[in-house]
């Protein structure tokens, strides 16, 4: 089985440990993925801004780089959704987009395996990224009257010690939205703060998501507000990492 690993641009630069954790998870399953140097980005920032011609060359690079892979794995629901749903328009119909899987999907649907991490003794709030949930169908969105098992939740649920908290709005958008976060800063920040409040009120200590881009926004807000809420990518939790609480000293001063 020839597996490609696509590491999105912002994970490569700002969250290398998410990619390393992803690689560890795959290697633990006996997979040595191909990691091409290009593409560095799936083209979503450009496509979502309407700049299709700027996104197209990146999509073409992606399809060429992974053309002879049986599967492509990506630790981001949002990038996977871009590839699966929008590459058809950008580069024409191609097999690569159908063979590209978000990490949790890949474990549940393709490998049918569960990583076996050490204990994770924390209260966890699961942040469902919209693109993972509604575009890829990683679970059942609260709007739809159907029950599909939640792949992210179920992978995590096997970890000893993990304790999920119940949120009042389990799948509301965090307000990141790519360039929206800057173009509509006021609404974006309010949406993010509302998500944080929901998780904190539910007693979450760690917010876990399959999309690091949502977490980049939420973590940025949490740190500015000095909330005691760590954020982790699902790959990190599955690979046995433990959370880092960065505001402990601030908490002490608050007391």
């Amino acid at each position, binding site marked *: 089985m020839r597996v490609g690993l696509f590491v999105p641009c912002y*994970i490569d630069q700002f969250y290398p440990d998410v990619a390393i954790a992803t690689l560890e998870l795959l290697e633990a399953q006996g997979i040595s993925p191909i990691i091409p*140097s290009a593409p560095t980005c799936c083209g979503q920032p450009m496509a979502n801004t309407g*700049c299709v011609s*700027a996104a197209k060359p990146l999509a073409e690079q992606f399809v060429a780089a992974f053309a002879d892979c049986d599967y492509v794995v990506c630790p981001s629901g949002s990038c996977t959704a871009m590839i699966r749903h929008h590459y058809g328009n950008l580069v024409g119909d191609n097999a690569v987009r159908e063979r590209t899987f978000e990490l949790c999907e890949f474990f549940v649907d393709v490998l049918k395996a569960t990583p076996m991490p050490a204990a994770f003794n924390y209260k966890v709030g699961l942040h469902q990224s919209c693109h993972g949930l*509604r575009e890829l169908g990683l679970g059942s*969105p609260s*709007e739809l*009257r159907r029950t599909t098992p939640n792949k992210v939740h179920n992978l995590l649920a096997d970890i000893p010690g993990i304790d999920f908290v119940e949120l009042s709005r389990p799948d509301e958008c965090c307000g990141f939205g790519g360039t929206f976060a800057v173009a509509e800063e*006021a*609404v974006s920040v309010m949406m993010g703060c509302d998500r944080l409040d929901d998780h904190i009120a539910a007693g979450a200590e760690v917010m876990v998501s399959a999309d690091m881009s949502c977490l980049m926004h939420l973590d940025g807000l949490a740190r500015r507000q000095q909330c005691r809420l760590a954020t982790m990518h699902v790959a990190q939790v599955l690979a046995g990492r433990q959370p880092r609480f960065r505001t402990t000293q601030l908490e002490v001063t608050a007391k």
Partner: protein
Amino acid sequence: MNHATAAKKFVTNYERAHWHDASLWFVRSKRDKATEVIPEWEQLRETASQIKRHTLAHLTDYLEQFTREAESRGVVVHWAVDAKEHNEIVAELLAERGMTRLVKSKSMLTEECHLNDFLTERGVEVIDTDLGERIVQLRRETPSHIVLPAIHLKRQDVGQTFHEYLDAPPGLDSPDELTELARHHLREKLLAAEAGLTGVNFGIAETGGIVICTNEGNADLGTALPKLHIASMGIEKLIPKTEHLSVFLRLLARSATGQPITSYSSHFQGPRPDGELHIILVDNGRTNLMASTEFHRALNCIRCGACLNTCPVYRRSGGHSYHATVAGPIGSVLGPAQDPKQHHSLPFACTLCGSCTDVCPVKIPLHHQLLAFRSQLAEQKLVSAPKRWGMSVASTIMRRPWLFALTGRMARFSLRWLPRFITHSWPNTWAQKRELPDAPKQSFRGWLADRPNDDNRNVDNGKQK
């Protein structure tokens, strides 16, 4: 005005923005409960979507059938190509009969046509009889929501409005008293009206009949008393048969407010024996929308407002921030379809979360349409130049792994060493209320290159290096 600017103003009143969000989330939650009891909900949505798509694909035939059937029942059918023609038809119908007092039940189409101003300028007294619409009309505002026109107002605001315009005592804020006051005021206007104008929720091609759904019964009173009934109807409101109503009536109120059905679903089959019924079929850009392969499904819309209630941006920015007749996700499609120059910011007032698409009872792929609109707007250069150039520069960098690595390294280095007052200063909108991510010393690909005992697996275009 740009949506982001107007939204920021709304959000600045944080407490009120949260109140607005909570009010609409309550409606969305009611919708969820009302749909949970229908096991075939998703099938119902699919059926409705297919009926609408079928009807729109055969719209000419159904419009002809509808007109024929309606005329055979004594209805006078008019055709209006745009808002101006529609308004002129209404004005003429009133002028011919020497009528100057018109009561209206809720009609987003007449809002779209700006009928009220048109008639008022010509000496006609127009009274909106839907309570929410009457409140915003008194305040000289536009509806901020297509189903809940005054949802942006608190009862204290309503009390103040009634005090200013209806001589209510100051400080009135009990819903019972306010409603009672409105009831007396509207009753007076309804009794004095010479003509009644309504919107149309569904036109049935098979029978030539129209159906109007309200909760207040104002459409019934507004058409039962005056001799002249004018119904303004967008051409997309047709359904082929009466039996199809069973699908749409089950979907409409559940999606809109979480009620199993609206309090009144009134059927009009031709005029009353002593009265007149005129139906105005309005295009106003609808055929253009129908011709568009990307956006024609927006014509499925039954104006339930579910996409507004669920939209996390709408809930926090308020309907008026859209500066369009219809706010929220569906308005962000319809607005730029009518006038891309004026409404170009609306498709960007969206995180592409997709909740609108999933609540839509007629399955309009709303967030995909908003995304599609963005590329149309970029093509028309209606996306700001810095944004377009920025994306083109980003693409140039991302296409070259060495340049991407270099840019990334420089960015991370600056982030680590530059003082905070520079990295988090005002031109950086991101960092006004958010921290920037930590900048690691090494990128993932840098780490991979240094990884010991490793074949490096760095390949270019599928070939091992």
